[in-house]
């Protein structure tokens, strides 16, 4: 049996990290929408993330973002002084950004789950085909072997193009 525990953990860790990057992008967008003090936040993100671009550091900078969210709330008083409409439109923009983030997160989780299922199925398909072809004797069996190999190749390409590597 092929062990894929480490690869599955890696794949899911990568999935979480991509979700974290999406979170950072959308939070940055929402902070920009807030304006004011938020303008000083984005430059901190690149400095928080090491040049190596390690996901854990990016995650940390993302985790730091929510705690920074309250800071933009210092902006509203100044914004409110200018126009109540600006504050409500800012709130709507933040809500829209949150909803978009939630959708992106769900899509990422679904995609990761689908790819994990496809990779598992592909591995089983490959094993079955190997055993089938090892048993193939007459021409009918050989036809089944050839057909199975074609299916595996097509499935492998499908998985590769959608999910990348399974390992």
């Amino acid at each position, binding site marked *: 049996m092929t062990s894929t525990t480490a690869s599955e*953990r890696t794949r899911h860790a990568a999935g979480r990290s991509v979700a974290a990057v999406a979170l950072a992008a959308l939070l940055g967008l929402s902070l920009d929408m807030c304006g004011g003090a938020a303008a000083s936040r984005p430059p901190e993100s690149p400095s928080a993330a090491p040049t190596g671009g390690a996901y854990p550091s990016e995650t940390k900078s993302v985790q730091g973002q929510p705690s920074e969210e309250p800071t933009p709330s210092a902006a509203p008083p100044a914004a409110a002084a200018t126009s109540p409409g600006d504050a409500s439109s800012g709130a709507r923009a933040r809500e829209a950004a949150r909803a978009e983030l939630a959708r992106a997160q769900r899509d990422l989780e679904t995609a990761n789950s689908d790819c994990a*299922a496809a990779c*598992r*199925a592909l591995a089983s*398909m490959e*094993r079955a085909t190997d055993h089938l072809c090892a048993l193939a004797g007459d021409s009918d069996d050989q036809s089944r072997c050839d057909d199975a190999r074609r299916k595996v190749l097509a499935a492998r390409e499908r998985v590769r193009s959608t999910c990348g590597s399974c390992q």
Partner: protein
Amino acid sequence: MKTTSLYVLAVAGVCALAACRNEGTPSGCPAADTSAAPIDAPVMAFLSAARALHHEADVHESTGDLEGASAALARLVALPAPAAVEVDEVLADAHARLAELGLRRGDLATGEREVRAGLDHAQGATYFRGHLLEVEGRIEEARASTFADAGRGPEAAQARARAIALLDEAVSVQEQVIQKALGTTDGGTHDVDHGK
């Protein structure tokens, strides 16, 4: 082990759902899908026990103790099982693993019995059914080899033909699983019935 990771995923997913429900606000949690059935405590308990027993089986298997691994998995499939899709999947997978262990020990009768039990929990084109068919095909392959070694040609040919049919069915099922998972609408899908 890949099977342990399957349950780590399942239990992690279940725990994540529970954590989200326990929070005062849904912030940070995926939006609730009100159309989906909630995972209740008995199911969560079963999944947790299953993960622990798979891990125990992993430990035994890592030392070459296939009997010990089988004993742990036998306890898993004997657990009181709440009615849930996740539970059926866990049981199907556990029976498949038991069948593979039987195959590795040369106990083909146990392997076949476990496949049969697993198929009761795996209907339709799912990975779990495909995997069980794959294992059964490999069991028949081993049976064919045993017959051939014993000079029982006709039985060997019969077992070999059955092995090929099962493995071919497994390929078709997994092809459908991949198409379903990745949204492919290619042809080549067909329903196959399992039967002797």
